[in-house]
Structures are given as structure tokens and as C-alpha cells.
């Protein structure tokens, strides 16, 4: 196994996103992950630098150690090596009780405050396109101390105002009026944190907890901060850029493609040479 970084032709964007996401986890943390790339990222962390992380899947497996990637959080594979297999009430109770350090989620749209939409495109009452709906996205995000979102980067997806706030960011709607207030104010004693990173196909974004605004942290190899700023419909803060996102190591690529997802269910393999 090799810990040196792979060269750009050896990996794809999905690899890069999984590896960047994986590095958001610290060992021993309790992590709640959704189906797809979030699942790959967290299992990659489990098989590299965070062997003692506790993995929770929404359908009801606690501290699972699947040998290969499950096809969904309800998959029989989730249960392999788990401490307990039960159900959704258990998983959400544990989350609401405050056990979860980190949530790993996806999204269709995000705004500059980290509000995420997975419900519909266009007016909710007259939707252009109805999507899956919330799933556990708002729940995991409400209950965890940090949440990392993994999304495809298209300009229309990085929008000043999401069509529907499915999952709460740093400035959220206060009902019945719907005016935006800081998450800390609305959540009060239930406040534990919020979105800590968005990892897109372009870069890694973080949030200024005070203002609640997104900023660019690192650019994926080959992209400039200005290019990424132009890929957002809102005014992206690029003043805090720290350079390039670290590429995958050869170890990480091996684990993704030869251990976790050899069938390329979630992560396509880049053709070499």
C-alpha cells in the first residue's frame, strides 16, 4: 500500500470528493451517514485514519463495519459487524439524544448559508420538479454537531435562495413569518452546530459561524478560486482560500475501488493510461 498522493490522471472527481469528505472525520467520532458517496467517504475513513469511528445508518444499524459498500442504508450489508441492529426509532433517538458528532449528507441545491434542498425545484406549490423529499437530511443535520454535504457543483445548484429549505443551514427561517435568523438563535438550547463543510466537484467550502456565510476553503486541483466563484449564483467569499484540496492517496484509491466499491456502484473508476 502506498500513502503518497495519486497523480491527477489516476483519480476522478468522485474519488477526490470521497477522500476530502473522509478527512473531515476524526477517530472515535459517532457518524451518521446517508446512502451514496457519504457512505463511501465514511467507510473510507473507517478503513484508514478513523478505525474506531462509530457508524450509524438511519435504517437502524449502530456501529456497523460492513466489509463492502451497502447499496443503501437499509441493505443487509449494513448489519455486518454491527454492535446493534434495530430500527429507525433507535437511530433517530440516539441522534436527538446528542450522540452524533458528524453527519454526512447529500443535496440538490445549497444557498450561501448552507441551507440545502432535496425536496423540489421551483415553487413548492407549483413545482417544476418534485425530488425525493427530505428523508433524514434535516434530522441528521439538526441533531449532529457538524454536518458535511457532498454535492455535484453546477452553478444552478449554488443558489442565493434554495427553492425549499429541506435541511437547515446557518441562517434559517423563523416561522410563522419566515424571516432569516441565525441558527443558534432559533435552536436555542438544542443548538449543537451546523453545516461544517460542503464538498462539491469544484472545491471544499466552509462557513463563518458568526455571519453564517459560506467561504471557499480549498480549490480542487486544476481549478482557481475565481473559476469557482463564477460557479456560484451567490457572492462567494474567496478571501480565505487555503490552496488546493489534497488529492487522494494511492491507499485511499485502493480501498475505494478494490475493497469498498469494486462494482463501481457509487464511484466510477478512472481508466488508467
Amino acid at each position: 500500500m502506498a500513502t503518497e498522493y495519486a497523480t491527477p490522471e489516476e483519480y476522478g472527481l468522485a474519488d477526490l470528493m470521497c477522500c476530502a469528505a473522509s478527512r473531515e472525520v476524526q477517530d472515535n467520532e459517532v457518524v451518521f451517514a446517508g446512502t451514496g458517496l457519504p457512505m463511501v467517504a465514511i467507510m473510507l475513513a473507517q478503513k484508514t485514519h478513523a478505525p474506531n469511528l462509530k457508524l450509524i445508518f438511519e435504517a437502524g444499524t449502530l456501529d456497523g463495519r460492513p466489509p463492502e459498500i451497502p447499496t443503501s442504508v437499509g441493505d443487509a450489508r449494513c448489519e455486518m459487524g454491527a454492535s446493534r441492529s434495530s430500527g429507525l426509532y433507535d437511530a433517530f433517538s440516539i441522534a436527538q439524544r446528542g450522540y452524533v458528532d458528524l453527519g454526512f449528507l447529500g443535496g440538490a441545491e445549497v444557498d450561501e448559508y448552507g441551507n440545502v434542498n432535496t425536496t423540489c425545484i421551483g415553487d413548492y406549490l407549483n413545482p417544476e420538479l418534485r425530488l425525493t423529499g427530505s428523508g433524514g437530511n434535516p434530522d441528521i443535520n439538526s441533531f449532529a454537531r457538524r454536518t458535511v454535504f457532498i454535492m455535484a457543483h453546477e452553478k444552478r445548484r449554488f443558489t442565493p435562495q434554495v427553492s425549499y429549505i429541506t435541511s437547515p443551514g446557518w441562517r434559517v427561517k423563523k416561522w410563522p413569518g419566515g424571516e432569516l435568523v441565525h441558527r443558534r438563535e432559533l435552536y436555542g438550547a438544542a443548538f449543537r452546530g451546523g453545516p461544517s463543510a460542503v464538498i462539491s466537484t469544484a472545491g471544499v467550502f466552509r462557513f463563518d459561524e458568526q455571519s453564517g456565510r459560506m467561504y471557499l476553503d480549498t480549490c480542487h486541483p486544476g481549478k482557481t478560486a475565481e473559476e469557482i466563484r463564477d460557479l456560484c449564483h451567490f457572492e462567494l467569499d474567496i478571501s480565505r482560500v487555503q490552496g488546493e484540496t489534497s488529492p487522494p492517496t494511492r491507499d485511499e484509491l485502493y480501498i475505494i475501488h478494490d475493497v469498498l466499491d469494486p462494482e463501481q456502484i457509487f464511484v466510477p473508476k478512472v481508466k488508467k493510461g
Partner: protein
Amino acid sequence: MSSDKRITLQQAAEIIKDGSSLTFSGFTIWRRPMAIIFELIRQHRRWLHLIEVNGGSQTEFLVGAGCVDIWESCWVGHELYGKYGANLSRKVANKEIIVEDYSHAEMMFRFAAAANGSPYAVTQTALGTDLHNPEYDMLGRAGLRDGKRIAAHKYLFTEDPFFGAGSQVLVPAAKVDIAVLCVQQVGEEGTVRVNGQYYSDPEVARAADITIVMAEEIVPEEYLRRNADQNTIASFEVNHILECPFGAHPTGMFGRYDVDGYFLKDFYGMTRTQEGFDDFAKEWIHGLDHISYLEKLGWPRMLKLKANTALNYSVREKGGK
């Protein structure tokens, strides 16, 4: 102690009347009572109100076939075999169906409240989202909140008076007429043993007024009662039982068979139009019964899906690719 809870597949579907509220076992594309879903479609059931912890392929079949007027849940799709619910999406755009959105935890806690005999649950989830947008109370907009089976409010906010824990969201109990479960084993008297994740099965069974359990196997009640601490649902919570091997296909069942990804992909592809759905239903539902459906699927396909009993999933098939 007799087995007078036994019914047939056709009878199971007949218990579910037009206009019933209905919920299911399972999770997205796992352990859904598909054989009964298909029978409901054959019987042209109408005006159903689905209240689901989460939706999945079963939702898309019923919605596509025009059986559903109201869908109250948080998610629909076919996981990696179909990224959203195309039938539901089309009918929402056409305003042919009422959708009431909650979060996943809210739906789970709503069923837990109903199962516990409480009128509502207390949570702190999804604060600040459009799930709580008062304009988006769709059952309210439709004038359906009678305070009887459908709660007078979609949700209410309150402040915790005991510990100053701040804003709480109160969500009403999910009161449903009928729960239809699909599990590995049921005893002759109704005791259910689920293997693997039990998802929200215990709560939906208890929340419903009538619970129907379809199982891969009906087993001797004494067999299950030898290890009572491994059982999932008590005998008296179950009204009707039936045996229906592979009854969850094309969804999967822990320890028995995997999800049929090819089938769901084909289905999802067809559901981009109503015509496509109708063609699929014509081929796979109408004019068939469960045995002829299995015959049509054929042995090679089912053997490929069959779980390895040491691992509880198939090592021959993954991902429908």
C-alpha cells in the same frame, strides 16, 4: 390457538377498502409487501391515503396505478436504481395527488406516538426549514384537517416548560387504518420475527387499527415462542397472516434475497411517463397472480438474488449493473 388468522393474498387486498389510510413495513426498497401491492392494483383500489415513515417502490407502484389520493411521508425513490419517484413527481406537478411533507424523524416519531397511544410527539428536529412553512400545510389547504383521523394541525411549536430546552415541534400521531407488513417469519398465532434491521415495523404494526402480516414462511408458533426475546411483534398485535414466498420482490429481504436492481431500474425508466407505467403494469401486474409472476421472473433471476445464509445477502448480485 388455531390458525384462523390465515387469509389469502386476494383477501388481504380486499381488507384494504377504497379510501383507507395505509402504511407498510420496510425501508425504501427493502421488505415491502409487493405481492399485496400488486393485488391492490389488480383490484383497482382507489383514494388511498398513504402515511409512510418513508416511501419507496411500493409507493411508486400504487401512485402510478392511480390508487393514491394523499401521500404523507418524507421520501420516495428507488435508492440507486431510480433517483426519485417519477410517478409521484409527475402527479404532484399535475396536482393529481396531495403530498404532505414531514422529515424522516418526524414521521418516525409520529408513528411511535401512535404506537404508544399518545396523541403527539415532542421533537426538536428540522427547525427553520420549509417543512414548517405554514403555507405548505397541504392537508390544511385542502380542508382535510378534521381533527379526527387527520390531525387539526400539521404541527405546532411550543417551548419546553420543564428544562428551558427551547423550541419544540409537536407532531401529531400517525393514525392509520391498516398496516401491511412483509417479514421473514410469522407464527400461526401472529407472532412476528424479523431478522436484521426491523426498520419501523414494530411501531407501524402497533399504530394501525388492523395489521396484516405477509411472511416468507408461516412457522409453528411454538418454534418462535421458544425464544421470545428474539421476536419483534406480539401475536395479538396482528390480525391477519399469510404466507407468500418472495412476496417482497422486487424489493429485498434480509437473509432471504437481495433487491432486484434490474427490475427496479427498468421500472423507474418506464415511469418517466404514465404510458410507460401502464405498459409496465400491463406486463408485470395485470393478468398475473403471484405464482405466474414468479414463473415469469424465472429461476435464474431468483437464484441470483438469493442471499447467502452466512452473510444474509447475495454474493452473486449487487447493484443491478
